[in-house]
């Protein structure tokens, strides 16, 4: 059963088409990576799925329900969480509050003004656990805006995974991290997404081929291939359009 | 009837163009710097007061030139030493700063010039009726106001479309973040734009002072209306500001000149109410009475139904 289904998705900004006829099925429990050169439209695709942008045409089904053109908060409530490529946190709130806020809806507090956060035992324990998991318990009382870059990335990830959503979209979660930080982050992602559906945009091919059950290659807003890693590696079109170039870049670096 | 219409139109035009002189500066500043300058009308007031003081010694004509320049310089200084400092704390802080500035300028004006209305008059040279229609005079000074306003727009239009600096400014309006990357001295441009914008407001004050009276409350009276205009027109749109200025100017002018109201409407509909009906006040409203609130009503309606304003592209 596919949990997410994109059908004939189009998106244009003004007259510029950015996403062109994208159709894709993602099975429940799958670890799916989306790769493609800069500007291919990967982030835009995420924005369409999570309601940040409206679609120009086509449809998106999540668990059989159409979710395109619905506001982000409704989509999030269905169990679809995401992180952002550009760090997107609550800068004045403490690290602890950032995570706690991300937990609130899924723990059923909604817009409550009759519960006191201090008295919400389960909520606070879960927040603490998550802080330990993302390795920020030492920084818990610091305003999130004052964290170092890698720590902010960890928090970004923490906010995305906090709600325990069934499906998690991560947009370049380890970009800009050092090698060891990235390794930790990947372990963390593996741990918290066990049994869940993960869609990830990532430029680091080692991580992609390590983690993904399936890889989709997006070039100029079109899917040129979508298959298991071993087939992608051998795919001539992908080699030509994308991989060769990246492998070259890597060998230079 | 027809003479009422003609004079209402002319008066509306005078007000509308005057408002645009303020609104254009405000729009320019907003487009460039993202700051909605709450104190904009205070610079207009300063223009009137400066011109009044200068005209006591040198007469009206030198004041017409010198006062706006002084106001512009003051504006540039305030940008340089005040606003720029606050800039890093974000737009809300900037808005609060200009709000405080408006407060401060009003108090400072009272300190230097006192609370009483100043006897700031139009020059003798223009103190004659330009034409008389149906026994009513149209003062030459008002024609002069129209003339100055239009001259300013033409100048502004020329500068914005034909000069290098104008093209940079235009680029900054549409792509606020990229101009810095092109290596232009953005802080200097900001200071200049703020200076010119406030200078324009000062000029508006110089020519409006004699007609709308020069008193410490004059900024308050016009200030929020100018705000209304730039928002209705669409923040950052010069064309929108022009349309909204004329719209508001004419709307108010017609409303004041008209003598209809709810009683006429009710009579026309054949409805009548007892005098002690709880909504009596509403049933007895007349259009001239509600003229002052029309701009705000329009603002709220526009913001509800078209939050980006009539000509707005950017929703900010």
């Amino acid at each position, binding site marked *: 059963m596919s949990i997410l289904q994109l059908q004939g998705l189009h998106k244009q900004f003004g007259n510029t088409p950015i996403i062109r006829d994208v159709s894709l099925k993602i099975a429940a429990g799958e670890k799916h990576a989306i790769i493609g050169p800069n500007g291919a439209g990967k982030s835009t695709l995420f924005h369409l799925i999570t309601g940040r942008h409206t679609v120009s045409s086509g449809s998106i089904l999540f668990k059989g329900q159409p979710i395109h053109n619905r506001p982000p*908060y409704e989509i999030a409530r269905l169990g679809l969480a995401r992180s952002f490529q550009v760090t997107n946190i609550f800068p004045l709130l403490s690290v602890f*509050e950032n995570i706690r806020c991300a937990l609130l809806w899924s723990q059923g507090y909604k817009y409550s003004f009759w519960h006191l956060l201090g008295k919400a035992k389960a909520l606070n324990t879960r927040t603490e656990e998550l802080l330990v998991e993302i390795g920020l318990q030492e920084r818990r009382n610091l305003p999130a805006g004052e964290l170092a870059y890698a720590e902010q990335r960890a928090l970004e990830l923490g906010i995305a995974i906090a709600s325990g959503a069934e499906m998690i979209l991560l947009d370049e979660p380890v970009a800009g991290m050092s090698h060891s930080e990235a390794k930790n982050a990947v372990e963390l992602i593996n741990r918290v997404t066990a049994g869940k559906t993960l869609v990830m945009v990532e430029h680091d091919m080692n991580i992609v081929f390590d983690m993904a059950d399936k890889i989709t290659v997006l070039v100029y807003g079109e899917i040129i291939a979508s298959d298991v890693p071993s087939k992608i590696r051998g795919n001539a079109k992908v080699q030509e359009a994308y991989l060769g170039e990246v492998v070259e870049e890597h060998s230079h670096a | 009837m027809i003479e009422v219409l003609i004079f209402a139109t002319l008066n509306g035009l005078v007000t509308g163009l005057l408002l645009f002189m303020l609104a254009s500066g405000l729009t320019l500043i907003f487009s460039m710097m993202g700051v909605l300058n709450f104190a904009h009308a205070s610079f207009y007031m300063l223009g009137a007061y400066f011109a009044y003081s200068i005209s006591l010694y040198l007469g009206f004509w030198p004041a017409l030139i010198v006062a706006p320049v002084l106001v512009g310089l003051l504006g540039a200084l305030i940008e340089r030493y005040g606003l720029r400092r606050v800039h890093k704390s974000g737009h809300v802080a900037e808005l609060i700063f200009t709000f405080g500035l408006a407060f401060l300028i009003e108090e400072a004006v009272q300190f230097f010039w006192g609370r009483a209305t100043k006897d700031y008059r139009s020059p003798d040279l223009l103190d004659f009726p330009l034409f008389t229609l149906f026994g009513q005079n149209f003062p030459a000074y008002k024609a002069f106001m129209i003339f100055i306003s239009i001259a300013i727009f033409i100048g502004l239009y020329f500068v914005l479309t034909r000069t290098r600096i104008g093209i940079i400014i235009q680029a900054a309006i549409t792509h606020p973040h990229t101009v810095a990357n092109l290596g232009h001295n953005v802080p200097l441009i900001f200071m200049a734009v703020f200076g010119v914008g406030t200078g324009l407001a000062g000029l508006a004050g110089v020519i409006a002072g004699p007609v709308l009276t020069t008193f410490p409350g004059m900024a308050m009276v016009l200030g929020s209306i100018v705000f209304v205009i730039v928002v209705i027109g669409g923040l950052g749109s010069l064309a929108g500001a022009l349309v909204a200025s004329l719209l508001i100017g004419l709307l108010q002018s017609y409303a004041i000149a008209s003598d209809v109201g709810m009683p006429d409407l009710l009579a026309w509909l054949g409805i009548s109410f007892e005098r002690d009906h709880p909504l009596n006040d509403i049933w007895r409203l007349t259009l001239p009475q509600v003229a002052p609130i029309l701009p705000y009503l329009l603002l709220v309606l526009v913001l509800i139904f078209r939050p980006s304003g009539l000509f707005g592209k950017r929703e900010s």
Partner: protein
Amino acid sequence: MLKYVSWALFAVALIVLPQIFTSILSVSILNQMCIAIVFALSYNMLLGQGGMLSFGHAVYFGLGGFMAVHALLAIENEQMMFSVTLIPLVGGLFGLCAALFIGSFSTHKAGTVFAMISLGVGELIAASSLILVSFFGGEAGVSGDRTYGPPFLGFDFAQNIEVYYLAAAWLFLATVCMYLFTQTPAGRMANAVRDNPERAEFIGYSARRVRFISFIFSGFFAGIAGGLFALNYEILTEQNLNAVTSGNVLLMAYIGGLGFFIGPIVGAIVLTLINSVLSNYTDLWLLYLGLMFVLTVMFLPRGLTGFLMMHRTPWHLGKLHLLAKPYAVTAVPGSIFVFSMVCIVEMSHSNEPTFNVFGFALDPSSFLSWGALIIIACLAFIALRRTLPSLRDAWDTANAIDTKPGVRP
């Protein structure tokens, strides 16, 4: 624990203050403070906690107040019968209704759009209040009498001190409620939406709904403040809902410090004092206030409370004493400068033949007094600037964490 102690101290202060400052004037200042604190706290729910800059908050204060006066009139005319102790609640409920209506369309966006709508609505209602005479009473306003209701525990509220204790009780209650609101999911999400409305939507919250909730609570408490105002002054006029009142509450909250719950309380107290004390000494007090506000925005963006809170780090590090001397050194030329500037300003404004300062009689018409003041001011300013670098150094030292094991660098 500390929390309960602070609340207890707050309650004790409220009870004891009028016993210390017993004059009629001080009780009336205390009453003003109670009203101002509730109002400023309600404003901070919008700006400080929710990121909504309002230029029209007096609308809810004024509407609540007008409704409260009408309730007083209804009691007086025996159309209704309830204790006047509940009048603030009437104001609050009406403020809430107004906020429900206005918030339904104005909380769509924060930032500039929200600020503009609040300005427009504020002007609209203030201008309408002069037209709709039967509710707002035109220029003269509406007045009532608080003594007609059934006595409450034997009090008929004829005296200001009785009103004070009633207001203080409401103040305490409202403050507790507003504090508790900050501790609820809705209150916390208000902070989150203030920081980053977009991200809030991706964790399941509609930014608009979150703002709306803060907005109506803010309207409610502003209405309570209006009700207290109605009880205290027994009259409301257009001034109570116009832009001046709206601006005033912005000043109070900002000068006090937006980022802290007690900020607006500090601001309300300071501004009420300035308002009532300074205005006795000089009719230029609004000029000073405006200057103070602009300087606060420029140099103390976190307000007076923020300034005090800056000293937490040196305090925790046990280095606060290092700052005492540099502060004193800066304060001397600083206060001389401010003082001489004030003298210059006041002297240029005064119509008296002599101007007395500390027993010196200065003559405003003589160049000597002007010259002396200006020279003093200039010297003090130069000295002030000289002291700043060492103050800055001292500040850095006092905030520097000595590298000890276990302390993060």
